[in-house]
């Protein structure tokens, strides 16, 4: 046996090559490039704001022509803002997805500007369908001939709601009669539970706005409750659901509750064909948010229609309409 072996100088080179090969493979495998091509563009070609508006109109008409979607099957869905655009959209979008699958029509959310009106959007055909309270519906019906398709069912399975007057737990105001000379907060001026029904309560109890030291519109039920909790207002008229929650937490006391009135529902404008209305109405009645259609919904139990819908009748709104006319909220009656 030979004890001497030739030193293998090649092994070092091979090892080096191997290391380089592994490094190359690692780099290739880690390549995170995408397939988006680079477009050569001229950024010096600018459009002034006026030119931009003209160009946008051209683009809109061009893209409108190129759009292959049948326009008659596309509907916009408006809604009274309850929380925030994000939160409301998160609640309504899965609901619209259900409507799309149930009817075969396309539904898109329509966001009404703060200085706009859900009622006007519906009347001006910016939206064809809308989720709105009874007060808004009465206005939409009065002004634009809208129809109520369905009313929302609450957790007890009833298509009605009411309003409460609340005070701080240590308040000396113990009943509705005591609020004269005190400050009163409402929610949104267009809200049924936050304004119309509290106004009915005042009227039923012979209290006018002049009997109060002051009153204010806080914009929402939540703001209204906070104004009482913070001491800015002595009393707040708001929706039953939120009031009960606050009572459970010991934050407020209820001093008065209203009668039951027709709950919020889905309304359609006069431009939608009857066959579409029928199909959508049936889909709404078939909607089972606590059952088979629960998956994918977002906090639907916090809406005013947690148990789905029931068909609405014209007679449901008779009393409320009379109150609205009496209180001067309806300008025109159809």
């Amino acid at each position, binding site marked *: 046996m030979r004890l001497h072996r030739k030193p293998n100088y090649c092994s*070092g080179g091979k090892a*080096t090559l191997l*290391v*380089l090969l592994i*490094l190359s493979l690692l*780099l290739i495998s*880690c390549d*995170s490039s*995408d397939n*988006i*091509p*680079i*477009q*050569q*563009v*001229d*950024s*010096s*070609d*600018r*459009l*002034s*704001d006026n*030119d*931009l508006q003209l*160009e*946008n109109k051209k*683009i*809109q008409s061009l*893209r*409108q022509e190129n759009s292959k979607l049948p326009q008659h099957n596309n509907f916009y869905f408006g809604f009274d803002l309850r929380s925030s*655009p*994000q939160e409301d*959209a*998160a609640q*309504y*979008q899965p609901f*619209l997805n259900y409507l799309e699958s149930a009817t075969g029509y396309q539904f*898109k*959310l329509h*966001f*009404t*500007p*703060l*200085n*706009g009106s859900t009622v006007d959007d519906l009347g001006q055909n910016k939206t064809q369908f809308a989720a709105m309270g009874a007060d808004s519906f009465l206005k939409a019906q009065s002004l634009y001939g809208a129809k109520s398709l369905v009313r929302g069912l609450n957790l007890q399975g009833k298509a009605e709601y009411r309003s409460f007057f609340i005070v701080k737990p240590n308040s000396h105001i113990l009943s509705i009669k005591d609020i004269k000379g005190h400050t009163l907060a409402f929610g949104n001026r267009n809200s049924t539970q936050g304004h119309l029904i509290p106004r009915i309560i005042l009227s039923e109890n012979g209290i006018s706005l002049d009997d109060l030291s002051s009153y204010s519109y806080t914009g929402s039920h939540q703001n209204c409750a906070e104004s009482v909790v913070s001491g800015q207002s002595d009393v707040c008229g708001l929706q039953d659901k939120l009031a009960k929650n606050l009572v459970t937490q010991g934050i407020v006391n209820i001093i008065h509750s209203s009668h039951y009135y027709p709950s919020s529902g889905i309304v359609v404008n006069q431009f939608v064909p009857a066959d579409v209305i029928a199909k959508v109405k049936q889909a709404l009645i078939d909607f089972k948010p606590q059952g088979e259609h629960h998956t994918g919904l977002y906090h639907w139990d916090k809406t005013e229609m947690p148990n789905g819908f029931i068909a609405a009748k014209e007679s449901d709104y008779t009393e409320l309409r009379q109150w609205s006319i009496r209180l001067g909220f309806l300008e025109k009656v159809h």
Partner: protein
Amino acid sequence: MMTISNRIFLLILITTSLSTLANFILTQHQSMSLHHDSEKILARTLVRSLRDALIQDVINDNQLRITNLLKSLKSHDNPIEYLYITKGIHNTVFAHSFEKGIPRFLVHSNNPAIKQSGVHLVHKYQTEHGLIYDYSETLLTGLDASLHIGINQTKIIEQLKKNNQYILTISIIILLSALLIAFLLGRQVSKPLTQFVHQIKLYGQGNIIKLNKLKNTSPEIKQLTTAFQCAIVERQQAESSLKSSEARLRGLLNTLPDLVWLKDKNGIFLSCNAKFGTFYGAKEVNIIGKTDYDFVSKDIADVFRKNDKAAEALGQPRTNEEQLTYASDGHKEWVETIKAPMYELNGDYIGVLGI
């Protein structure tokens, strides 16, 4: 053949170069990945932080407020080249951050419908200001409004290049430092071994060497030195023993009253005792290397040579009677000579031993 110090140097050169190269490549790659991630994070953070502020204004068509907000975010200090919002089902530009009008290509860009939430890279534009990555995210599902953010890649890459140049410079400095250390270390590590080899060479040349100094350098060298010193001592003892043995043998031979000699196969004297020296009238040192023909007449030398060959041919001792005349004093003696062929241990023929 390469010395150990050179091998160490080469080894460190290769490993350091490879690790520095790998480190540089990976750092570059990592910085590019981070760059892609960071710009996406930047775009996402911008969208998330602006979304709530923008949504209500977009719904309210508050173009002026949005424009002011977008313009305030664009700065020369950051890589954000522009921000703009498209709105409506036709994705037309609603508001933008450009001071001198929006570029036409952005107005006409076909932004793909993005179903998934989150920031998406939708376009890459090569402009005279550099390469712009256009990120987009829907502001709110159902709102038909998207925020677009153009991030200037060229600015980022220029910054990255500066960083990479810095990394490269540092890498080269580290490499050179490592090589210098490797060179010095290699020399330092191999120095005792080199000194040891040098001492062995000196010893081979018959010089006196000093190995004790090397014992403190490293355990391996200490072992080698100790082993070598032991070998030297053993050799010296063997030499001494051999010399004693030779001296005793020489004394024995010289004490003998008989003539004793040894010639090789060519008749050249290899050895003889003092008595034989008196026969030829010369000292042993003067006899060795010479033949009978150098001391006696050709006739007598021929007889001696003939008897040597006869003993060689016979392969065993052979006896003769010869009258010898001593050169030292001229007296003559009749002697009986025994000539025996002599062999090495391995059987090789040496010559003829005469007594």
